[in-house]
């Protein structure tokens, strides 16, 4: 297993952390180079068992998994199945690496939950398409995280308003690490405006 940072990747700030699982050294070298050039951070595993070990140890670090199908130790099908069966890993998008003559296998993997595939041998156009796909997957992940955070803050605000209205029994139990009202009021979005309005209302009714 090797880990290597891209030229501009001091960490997965804009680039993602990609796990390449492929027994084929040529594929690993070409993919690693292509992804690092785009600012991604890359870790590689030689086969499915090693890939799963890395995912189970550091699962949340990885944004996307590139997974070969025919491999020793543990093949791509079984690796994908175990990954999708694990609630901690199931959300990580998987892009299959396949020969053009493995379309049946690719379709099986898509049915099992793989997000996409890249055919071998690679060329400039394919690597560019892969990069675009990975960037779209990263953006979708960030959007999902923003959505979850937005929902948690909205819930917190609803609790505060409900408490002010004296309807404590209606409040839901928010996590102890949920942001405070002043913290929410510092946001520059609609929730921030709402929090500031709630603060003003609170002062007016005090």
């Amino acid at each position, binding site marked *: 297993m090797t880990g290597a940072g891209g030229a501009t990747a001091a960490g997965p700030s804009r680039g993602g952390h990609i796990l390449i699982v492929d027994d084929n050294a040529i594929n690993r*070298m070409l993919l690693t180079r292509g992804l690092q050039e785009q600012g991604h951070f890359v870790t590689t595993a030689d086969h499915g068992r090693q890939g799963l070990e890395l995912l189970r140890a550091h699962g949340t670090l990885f944004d996307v998994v590139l997974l070969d199908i025919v491999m020793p130790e543990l093949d791509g099908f079984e690796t994908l199945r175990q990954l999708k069966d694990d609630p901690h890993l199931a959300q990580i998008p998987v892009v299959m690496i396949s020969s*053009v003559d493995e379309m049946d296998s690719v379709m099986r993997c898509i049915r099992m939950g793989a997000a996409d595939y890249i055919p071998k*041998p690679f060329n400039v156009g394919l690597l560019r398409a892969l990069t675009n796909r990975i960037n779209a997957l990263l953006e979708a992940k960030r959007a999902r995280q923003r959505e979850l955070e937005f929902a948690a803050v909205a819930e917190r605000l609803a609790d505060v308003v409900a408490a002010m209205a004296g309807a404590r029994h209606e409040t839901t139990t928010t996590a102890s690490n949920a942001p405070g009202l002043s913290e929410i009021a510092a946001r520059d979005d609609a929730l921030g405006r709402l929090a500031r309005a709630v603060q003003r209302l609170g002062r007016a009714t005090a």
Partner: protein
Amino acid sequence: MAHGHHGHAGSAGHAEAEVLDRSAFAQLRETVGDDEVFLADLIHAYRQDSRQLLAAMSAALAARDAVALRRAAHSLKSNSASFGATALAALCRDLEGEAQVGAHDLAAGRVAQVAAEYERVERALAQAQPEGGPAQ
């Protein structure tokens, strides 16, 4: 994903004598951004891998291990296609199929063909490589 697959075996027929498909090898060069040092590293890795895979094929044949034979054929096929060694990749694809159906005698003959073709590929790669190349 929009897969811009560039076909390599043109409809004008392919030269049997051509060990390395020029356009496929040119594509590999383009893929590595004409970085000759990286290309030399790739060729070095290919030679190392191929030697191991040929040995694995012989061992799998002797042990009548069809799964190991198929896997080795699959890997060498994939690697060889990357370098434009289309004839070698085609032989490996045949071997993969023969291993899958358990055609042991056919596979034994095919492994010998694969080994002979690989020698041609290695010579062609040495010529295609820029002066020097990696030290063995």
